[in-house]
């Protein structure tokens, strides 16, 4: 699926995708014999030129109650335009609490990146 309507727009996609990008992003007692189930998600990200930010704070974002499985099911994906307009984005996973998923926080810290180019253009 290509997000044509969002082409050239400032887009942030977040949530629970219920799939990982790489086998390293999941750990389970079950044995996985192939990675073909990951291809559609990777294709979606690649075709739409989405920026997949590194995850800070922890390696996985979902933990099965009995501890037998853990995965990185949750993430923020940014369009190229979003990452150009807001270059200082970081993605941090926090404590799960009562859910079995961790909250993720996307933030932009202006202090780290100085004046924004768009403001200079407006002068």
């Amino acid at each position, binding site marked *: 699926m290509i997000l044509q309507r969002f082409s050239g727009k400032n887009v942030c996609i977040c*949530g629970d995708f*219920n*799939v990982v990008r790489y086998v390293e992003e999941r750990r389970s007692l079950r044995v996985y014999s192939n990675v073909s189930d990951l291809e559609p998600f990777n294709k979606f990200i690649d075709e739409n030129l989405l920026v997949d930010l590194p995850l800070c704070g922890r390696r996985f974002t979902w933990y099965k109650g009995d501890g037998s499985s853990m995965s990185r099911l949750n993430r923020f994906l940014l369009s190229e335009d979003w990452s150009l307009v807001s270059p200082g984005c970081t993605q941090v996973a*926090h404590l799960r609490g009562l*859910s079995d998923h961790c909250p993720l926080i*996307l933030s*932009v*810290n*202006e202090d780290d990146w100085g004046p924004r180019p768009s403001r200079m253009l407006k002068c």
Partner: protein
Amino acid sequence: MGTVRVCKGVGMVGLFSGGGGEGSGVVMKIISWNVRGLGRAEKRKEVKNLVGEKGPSILCLQETKLEVCDEALCASLWGGTPHFFSYRPSVGASGGLLILWDASLVEVWSTESIEHAIIIHGQFVQSNDEFYLVNVYAPCDNGAK
């Protein structure tokens, strides 16, 4: 994409001061969390504590497991500061999406509820940057998990 339909609930509540925030350099903060149900008061309190502690501009929740989200529910999650919300109902006890945003920091022009997602379109008040935000809860396929 799936069928498109207009989202049911958009509203605003509360005009009390409060809420939280951190470092002065942070211009925008978006929280995304699969809460696995908002029916229990403990869960709603946990969300409210997170909002109070982190001071997000926008909060995206997945798996609300609620067929209806109203102003009272949203106030119990966001607190007393002005906010708006948009939601996609759960199907029975499955799924359900909710987005809340700070009315003073984010201006939303339209919201759209589609299969597995809500899209909001607007701009960040401080920067005037136009944006689209998509809150996704993809169907669960245990093999891919």
